[in-house]
């Protein structure tokens, strides 16, 4: 009974696994598509082999025994069958190896310079994406939110500041480890505009579970516009409340970890906040970027991400409101 149940489940799985926003069978770029195709091939062959082995076992157990079966002649036929099965195994594995090498060509390292190059830097427990530029002041940092133009390969220089992490956006490509002490190159490409979720895939300590990121793919013009916007320093406060918020920020522990370009806050320990209000999530993909969640995060980060480097801050209610207004203005 279980065999049939398993077979049915496999089919059901194959159908259901395609969905899901972090599924490898929902490819949105050439690399992920090539892997997904290979995956279906491997699953098909494996399922077939599995059913054959189960059928052979079932037959071996259930067949009617005859007295002449105890004759040694029977072994010759068996030897033939075992040899054939072994030969088929060898050929099948060879075919899978070839298919796998063919699908893997060009997959792990970029073929050309790429339209855009981004440095991917891992931290416990957030991502920094830095867009290189010849002018140092034009280097853009976009923590936890990687913007890319659609339809072109984007080269990623992958590295880590502390422990090993692994960059993984299943809809676009497989994993690449971020290893301290070395920089490796990989690439991604999205075919269509959209937001794709990824998360750290190498155990990196306490908050490994909450080290997510999103990739925002948009048309080239829009991407350039975004990049231009991100190059600007933080906007000046436009109200008294926001001005007070900036004071709170600069005089509280916030400034000792975060950078807001255009102010005196310049520490690189935590994620840069110059344009934090333009981002979709906070706390590395943990919470949607709303005023309420931001308040929670500032006041009680340790309850949301226990062990994270962001402390729970004691801020007077009025100061918190001012701080929120200011931070929410950093678009």
């Amino acid at each position, binding site marked *: 009974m279980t065999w049939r149940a398993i077979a049915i489940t496999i089919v059901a799985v194959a159908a259901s696994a395609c969905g899901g926003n972090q599924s490898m069978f929902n490819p949105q770029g050439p690399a992920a598509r090539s892997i997904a195709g290979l995956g279906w091939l491997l699953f098909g062959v494996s399922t077939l082999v599995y059913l054959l082995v189960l059928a052979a076992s079932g037959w*071996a157990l259930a067949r009617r025994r005859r007295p002449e079966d105890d004759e040694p002649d029977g072994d010759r036929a068996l030897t033939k069958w075992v040899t054939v099965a072994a030969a088929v195994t060898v050929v099948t594995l060879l075919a899978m*190896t070839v298919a796998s090498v063919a699908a893997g060509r060009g997959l792990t390292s970029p073929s050309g310079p790429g339209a855009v190059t981004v440095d991917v830097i891992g931290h416990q427990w957030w991502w920094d994406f830095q867009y290189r530029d010849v002018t140092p002041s034009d280097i853009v940092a976009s923590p936890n939110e990687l913007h890319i133009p659609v339809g072109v390969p984007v080269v990623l220089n992958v590295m880590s500041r502390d422990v090993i992490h692994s960059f993984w956006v299943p809809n676009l490509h497989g994993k690449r480890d971020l290893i301290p002490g070395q920089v490796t190159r990989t690439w991604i490409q999205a075919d269509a505009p959209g937001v794709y979720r990824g998360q750290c895939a190498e155990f990196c300590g306490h908050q490994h579970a909450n080290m997510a990121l999103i990739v925002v793919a948009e048309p080239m013009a829009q991407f350039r516009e975004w990049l231009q916007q991100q190059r600007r320093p933080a906007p000046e406060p436009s109200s008294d409340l926001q001005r007070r918020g900036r004071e709170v920020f600069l005089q509280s522990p916030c400034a000792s970890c975060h950078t807001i370009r255009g102010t005196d806050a310049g520490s690189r320990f935590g994620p840069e906040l110059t344009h934090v209000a333009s981002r979709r999530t906070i706390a590395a993909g943990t919470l949607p970027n709303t005023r309420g969640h931001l308040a929670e995060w500032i006041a009680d980060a340790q309850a949301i991400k226990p062990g994270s480097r962001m402390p729970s801050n004691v801020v007077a209610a009025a100061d918190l409101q001012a701080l929120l207004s200011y931070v929410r203005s950093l678009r």
Partner: protein
Amino acid sequence: MQEAASLAGAVPARVDDPRLARELEQTWRVPHGIIGWFSVVDHRTIGLRYIVTAFGFFIVAGILAALMRIQLAVPNNHFLGPDLYNQVFTVHGTMMMFLFAVPIMQALGVYLVPLMVGTRNIAFPRLNTFSYFVYLFGGVMLCVTMLVNSAPDVGWFAYVPLAGPDYTPGKRADFWAQLITFTEVSGLAVAVELVATIFKTRAPGMTLNRMPLFVWAMLIMAFMVIFAMPSVVTGSTFLLLDRLVGTHFYNPAEGGDALLWQHLFWFFGHPEVYIIFVPALGIVSSIIATFTRRPVFGYTAMVIALVATGFIGFGLWVHHMFATGLPQLGLTYFTAASMIIAIPSGVQIFCWIASLWRGRPRFDTPLLFVLGFIAIFVLGGLSGVTLASLPFDLQVHDTYYVVAHFHYVLLGGAVFPLIGGIYYWFPKMTGRMMSDRLGRWNFWVLFLGFNITFFPMHILGIQGMPRRVYTYPAEMGWGTLNLVASAGALLLVVGGALFVYNVVRSRAAGAPAGDNPWDADTLEWSVSSPPPVYNFLHIPVVEGRNAVWDRSADAPIVTGLGSDRREVLVSDVIDAEPSNTCTYPEPTIWPFLAAVVTSAFFITSIFTAWAVPVFALPLTVVLIGWFWPGRGEE
């Protein structure tokens, strides 16, 4: 321990020379009393202790797994926080691999191999006692760290720099690294004993090509231990040095290399799974031969497949590192090697199916577990083939797909045969049968529980759920399958409890087994159940590949071995021609004392490097005591 006393009192069923039996009984007696308990050098007693202890750790690690399934049953759960969860999954993995899986397989070897090759005790019996206590103390240390909230929390693989001094201050990672030292010392000791026992003390006539497949499997396992474990000992020692005295083996800022750890670890870690799996293949072959009443089909092919697995198992380790960005050409080699290892496994599966085909299967509990093994292991093997593919692995690496895969090959591939093996050998070890009725229930509950728990994890992995996460957001849509998996885990707990209940009840009140209840073929079934302390009244002479089935009525026996001292026959490696005799040492307290001092040394060295000079003297003293020539020793 109870079994020691009952063994000493047992009356062997096949005594045809009461005077000789009495003398041997006196010479090989198992010492009594508290000091006696710590002095035992008898392979059956130590083997049983190993088995019971390893199952104890299996239960603890299983409870930890249940805690993880509770935490993951629903999204955003707060049952275990990240700190506790990370300790729990680390200890679960570490305990299962180092304190259960490898030791239990070696334990079966310690108990069964001397009986199967027809000798009176394991080679280096005092080392055997020492290895057991070192293993026990190491395991107890890990349990204590859990109780005081200092358990390792860096994963059973302890990747640096996370496990290094900068990112895991405190002593948690040191306990992990030192546990490795404990288990490696005991594991290497047992491996050496098994190789020596198999190569040098086989009964006359048991040439290499007549050796039972179980013994072959144990031999391959022992060699794999000897070649794999030094790598992780080196790695964990470097880690301790980095942490304790400030070396920089793994510190990239000072010219060290984080990837060095991964190479050292996986050069051991991949063979490790074959170290666990190969003995299980031996169990499967034993059970299939007995319950089809025919020798396993294709003996030569089976042996070659085991040896090939042993070799190829050392050429795959980089498939754990596909995502690190190593050069493409090298990775292609490891894809090919990882595919190739499926060939010997396939050949063995085909030979077993052929054995089932030509035999007349008798569906007792042990065979049910073997059939369950085939159904589960083949699926796990096939998912393993998909993981060998570099591009596919880049997606599913470090996801629940891998968790599903290795539970299929380790639980299905090793624990199912193991439990079948316990049902099979329990009568030999205790003299009583386990309940077959309960055994059937036991099998079906475990089989269903296993598939309900682990099959959905394949899908979770494909849907992008990473491993080692203490929680996940509800929006990801992973909740339902996780709940199903957790429900299956409940069945696994019930199945485990059934097994323990059956063991406890059958030991007290099972039906008497007799010498050979299954009409099995290997030499352990030719003596009483449980076997006498000296194993064989007369060492048998083996006449064919089927030691018991082929035995003629007037089969020759070995005579002339001394019964006034612990004399055993030594034979040559290939043909088992008797070459000389050797006298095994008497029971003594020194190996236990040596284990105490060694353990104290290992634990102290977690805290201070001064442990090295401080413990040099006591170690010297206990070793002198251990090797002081005793009565009848040359």
